[in-house]
């Protein structure tokens, strides 16, 4: 993975952005509306999607790993790591596959990613709790993923449109 200095710098900025988004979405009291443990808007996925298209698979993975690790350190909660990792990695894998299909727009890819993210989180919950009870939340979380995925896709599409004329990667 040969990165230019520019790309490396972009990675760092994106990681910071992802961490910021993670923190910010933690402030939004989603669990008041839907009393499910660990339900998140998944805003950090905006960075993952953007990085995937802008930089490619490996840099995006690196940003994801860094964001998850640092995120759990900042939150002071080691078990959060398995949740964000499983959710993030599964989302990434699904999006890589989906992005191969030219017919899909960025919305389809993001929705698929959001759904995979929630499945990964439920999987992490099952491992942590040693019970199959969390599966009961999956149907609702998957419906929610349709909306958070669409939102993520929308934001990234705006980003790309805005950056269209900005030559970020070139001198």
């Amino acid at each position, binding site marked *: 993975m040969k990165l230019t200095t520019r790309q490396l710098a972009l990675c760092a900025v994106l990681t910071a952005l992802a961490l910021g988004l993670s923190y910010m979405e933690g402030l939004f009291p989603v669990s008041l509306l839907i009393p499910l443990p660990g339900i998140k808007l998944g805003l950090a996925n905006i960075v993952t999607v953007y990085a995937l298209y802008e930089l490619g698979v490996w840099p995006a993975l690196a940003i994801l790993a860094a964001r998850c690790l640092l995120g759990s350190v900042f939150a002071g909660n080691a078990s959060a790591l398995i949740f964000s990792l*499983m959710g993030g*990695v*599964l989302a990434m*894998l*699904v999006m*890589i*596959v989906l992005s*191969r299909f030219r017919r899909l727009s960025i919305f389809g890819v993001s929705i698929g990613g959001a759904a995979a993210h929630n499945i*990964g989180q*439920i*999987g*992490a919950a*099952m*491992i942590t709790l*040693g019970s*199959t009870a969390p599966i009961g939340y999956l149907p609702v979380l998957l419906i929610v993923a349709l909306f958070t995925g669409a939102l993520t896709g929308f934001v990234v599409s705006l980003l790309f449109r805005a950056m269209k004329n900005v030559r970020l990667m070139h001198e």
Partner: protein
Amino acid sequence: MKRIFAILLAAGMLFSLTACGSSSYTADIFAMDTVMKLTANGANAQAGVEAAVKEINRLESQLSNTIASSEISQLNAGGSGTVSEETAQLLSAALTYAQKTEGAFDMTIAPVVSAWGITTDTPRVPSADEISALLQLVGSQHITVSGTSVTLDAGCAIDLGGIAKGYASDRIAAVFAENGVTSGVVSLGGNVYACGMKDKKTGWRVAIQDPRDSANYAAVVTLSNQFAVTSGGYQRYFTAEDGTVYQHIIDPATGYPVKGDLTSVTIIGTNGTMCDAYSTALYVMGKEKAIAYWASHSDEFGLVLITTDGQVLYTPDLEGNLESVEGSSYAYQVIG
């Protein structure tokens, strides 16, 4: 393309992590004239269950007296012969149980059972003369087992139906152990084998059917590494033209279906063959004798009796284990 494949493979492995520890395998089969369900948990679940099914089929072809080529059928046809060591040992065990229960359990009852035909399509009520003639053929004295050679008196026949499923459950316990299965539950008609625990903290919950209502349970026991067998007349019976109900468990002493004060007998123990034999024997004995028999063999098994007057009686070793069923209208009582 290779990249995509590698990534999908990784995703698949990641996914399989989430299923860690909850693998389980179940097989539903029909054998030995009854419906059987075998379940095992853990990594060796499928191998264990498949091996157990093979073992059941093997035993059926060896011991059934409705399969012409089985060792037992050939013995019944020929009068004497050589059997495999396994069958010889099972026959010896059956003789021991017959002796211990003073004939309440008796495999030589076959000719009488055939005459009634209650479990076949053509049940009938034999005449009193026919029955007393057939009773001459019943009794442990008519069969001799010496090593692997067996001698059966003329006209006599044996039926291992009251012990075969119990023996099969013992064999399944061994097969599970051989295959590294440490958690599972197997139900062979009215015979249950509970292997290990269901999960880290709970044993297997086994319900005893209510003889009066097939949709409800009379009681529930929790088992671990134990066998439980239930016998009861309500399981199979036929109603004659005059309205009399004849149930399928024949009393070897009278040649007639048992007409006692018990509707169901459940034996719980660590030997499947014994549980099977005793469940039939104690049903034949009736309440008083069954309790007396248990009292002199109390360390061998636990007992649950359901009586015709609406009581569920159980032995002290099951106290704290046996659960009553809400709204079952039975009176639950510990035996003396």
